[in-house]
């Protein structure tokens, strides 16, 4: 049972970038109801830069906060920069997560990679090399 940081609660209370993007350039969809967390991430890309990102999440406080933080972090980043954002970066930006909630940050990383994969497939015909979501 988690003790969340103030930062996590802030993002949970007022999550940034909630919603869908119409005609997105990439969509990532990860998780399933069995594990209790589902994330959808939408990105809009212009000149190789992520100009907008939004999410929809079914999940716990940590799932919502990591989604919110991840969308914050990627905005304005190039695709290459965005791919460097690890789940650990999200956790740090949130001032930490309880151990049993770390998997939520992995999910957020997966959702982003999924969206980028989708974007690359659409634009280059090839997705991220060897990419598939983590097993839960």
């Amino acid at each position, binding site marked *: 049972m988690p003790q969340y940081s103030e930062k996590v609660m802030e993002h949970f209370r007022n999550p940034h970038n909630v919603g869908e993007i119409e005609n997105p350039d990439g969509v990532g969809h990860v998780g399933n109801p069995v594990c209790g967390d589902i994330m959808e991430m939408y990105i809009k890309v212009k000149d190789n830069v992520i100009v907008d990102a939004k999410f929809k999440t079914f999940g*716990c406080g940590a799932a919502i906060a990591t989604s919110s933080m991840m969308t914050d972090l990627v905005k304005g980043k190039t695709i290459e920069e965005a791919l460097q954002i690890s789940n650990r970066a999200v956790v740090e930006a949130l001032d930490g997560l309880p151990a049993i909630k770390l998997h939520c940050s992995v999910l957020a990383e997966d959702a982003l990679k999924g969206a980028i994969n989708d974007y690359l497939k659409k634009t280059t015909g090839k997705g991220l090399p060897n990419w598939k979501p983590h097993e839960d």
Partner: protein
Amino acid sequence: MEKAYFDYAATTPTHPEVVTAMLPYFEEKFGNPSSIHGFGRETKAAIQDARLKVADLLGADQAEIVFTGSGTESDNFALEGVAFSREKEGRHIISTPIEHHAILETLKFLEKRGFKVTYLPVDQYGMVNPEDIKKYVNDETILVSVMHANNEIGTIEPLAEISKVIRELNINRENRIYLHTDAVQTVGQIPVNVNELGVDLLSLSAHKFYGPKGVGALYIRKGTKLVSFMHGGEQERGRRASTENVPGIVGLGKACEIAKKELPVWTTELTRLRDKLKNGLFAKISDIELNGHPTLRLPKNLDVSIQYVEGESMLLSLDMEGIAVSTGSACSSGSLEPSHVMLAIGKTHEQAHGSIRFSLGRLTTEKEIDYVLEVFPPIVERLRKMSPLYKGVK
């Protein structure tokens, strides 16, 4: 911020009269009940007085009450006590998949030590069919343990019928089958009489009905074979070692005395408030369903599954408004599995993850119910807007 506590099934505030009863036993009347001198005789008498009150609430004899440190200890004591004292007669135990962890984990421990456990099926309300016991019983069966009411979904099990089935089976058996019930969620909350239920062993915990935390009791019907769980001194007629928690025991006694008097009022009032809450939520929130039995349930309990939203996020959102509830979602349990109870009654993972338990108590007010009805529907709405599962529904 307004505060509204709807988690009485998790624990209750100690009754002011209970605290008052306990207080003299810290600084003033502090003797060890095992001591022969006056300081000891005084507290020994206090324990005895408490024992009478517990026995009175349960319709038991005072000699059948053993004080323990909690509901969990009573459960461990009952199961291990019977198992280890009767293993030569048989090593088979029957229970249910919706028991509290205090039962399930103890059964696992016993399974590792050579005992076999069969879990009775339960229906969609979590209800056991007493007749099933006949199917699962065998020559090795020494114990059946079925909880009196489920802590999560509130369903009350047909204990009297279960004990009838067992009594019939026992007529033709050499190794009598004992019946234990975990009554942690019922004692002090609905009428519980050990003879009407026909149980040999019954666990209770003080903090669930306005007594203090850290004290419980085990009812042990006369003649029931049971080895000690806590080994040591000769306290509790040699059945439970350790210097007695005198203030705690006095508090438990007082809580029983109060419950005996107030029970009828609590039951009617909680049923009324709970039903108001239920009707209000069902009117204001779509895709919501009740968990547990519609009528044979604890008056205090309202457990619902709300589609498209996850339990912890609802719980935290309610907490931000000062409302305390509980959920069967994995996310709150410290494990990654959602409530074993929800899964056992055939709910989907999604339903389990979306479950919220409101449990009411003697201090619950009409105003608190109104407050939840005002605050909760917009929370659900807001979280649903965020939920990818809700899309198709809009």
